[in-house]
């Protein structure tokens, strides 16, 4: 085969390969959405129990994804979980916003739900969400139910 033909075929092959990579990153992966989240500010929240929350979990407000969980660490003084959240700069939240750990579906992934309060001042970068509600741990609920049943039995 002549030079030109080989060059064209190799060029086609390389282009196809890169197209496949871009397809995997943008269409199959989350590159298109995580690029949109590049410009973020970070706030922290403390929870008594985060359940199964993982880094990169979604942060939603009214069901819309507004950010991602950046990291989860344990404060060894208060034994609370410290969750750092990156929120898209397009979205501003009042200072008295509360954060809840919720579950998508009955046994789905856990995410953080933000409920805005009524304060006129906004959460700034490095700010802290004071009002938090821990994750619902299934075992605790079952335990409470068993205890309440036992207590009812005692009264009878």
């Amino acid at each position: 085969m002549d030079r030109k033909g080989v060059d064209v075929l190799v060029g086609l092959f390389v282009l196809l390969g890169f197209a496949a990579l871009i397809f995997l990153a943008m269409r199959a992966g989350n590159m298109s959405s995580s690029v949109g989240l590049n410009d973020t500010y970070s706030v922290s929240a403390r929870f008594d129990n985060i359940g199964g929350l993982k880094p990169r979990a979604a942060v939603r407000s009214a069901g819309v994804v507004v950010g991602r969980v950046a990291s989860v660490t344990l404060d060894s003084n208060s034994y609370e979980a410290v969750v750092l959240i990156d929120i898209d700069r397009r979205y501003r939240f009042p200072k008295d916003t509360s954060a809840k750990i919720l579950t998508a579906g009955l046994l789905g992934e856990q995410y953080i739900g933000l409920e805005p309060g009524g304060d006129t001042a906004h959460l700034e970068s490095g700010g802290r969400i004071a009002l938090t509600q821990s994750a619902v741990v299934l075992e605790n609920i079952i335990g409470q139910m068993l205890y309440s049943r036992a207590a009812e039995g005692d009264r009878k």
Partner: protein
Amino acid sequence: MIKGPARVLRATAEAVSRVGYGTRFFLRLCGLALAGLRRPRLVIDQIHFIGNHSLSIILVSGLLIGFVLGLQGYYTLRRYGSEEALGLLVTLSLVRELGPVVTALLFAGRAGTSLTAEVGLMKAGEQIDAMEMMAVDPVARVLAPRFAAALICMPLLAALFSALGVLGGYVVGVEMIGVDAGAFWSQMQGGVDWLLDVGNGVLKSVVFGFTVAFVALYVGYHAEATPEGVSRATTSTVVVASLAVLGLDFILTALMFSSN
């Protein structure tokens, strides 16, 4: 009495020196492949030979594996009422594991063997010796362009394999079985991280490219210069490269995906 330990010692020294020689050969290939990029003509010819000619087998296998993943995944997920996660299952298994590994195995069978046989026959036909006589370094002239081309081809082929697999899973899952198309793609995008999953998959395929290309060229270059020697070398390329890829895959998976 002394003979036994002495023989063991000599065998150990032999094995260790072989590892050392292999490492030296590998580093030399890497250096020469980098230098060889200054003569892109040779590399492009080899990309055509290795990459374009492997394209059909890679594309067809990717599509078929995607079909199978779509069917099998659907049967299992249906039990838990979560058919929508089919896209996520197909894509994660392809991007993380099957794409790089199966491509590397096919690549060893399709391109690795032909590299070994070609280099081995050059040696058997005394072409390598002739080059040395003319003061042309056969490692730089013959092996390095092939090494560079294999390194370039492998990640591209693995990406094509995964992409075709995802499309195959889509065809079976959405078009034939009737999983909701929106859920198929959105669950996939929600669960596949472009850096952690796709990026690590690409990294894996690069490592496998180094492995397969090195094994094929090393074995071919050191084949016995007889017809039987070349045929033995070709067989051992497939065996050694496949085992090395599968072993490395375990180590890489443990390193990359153990944290989450």
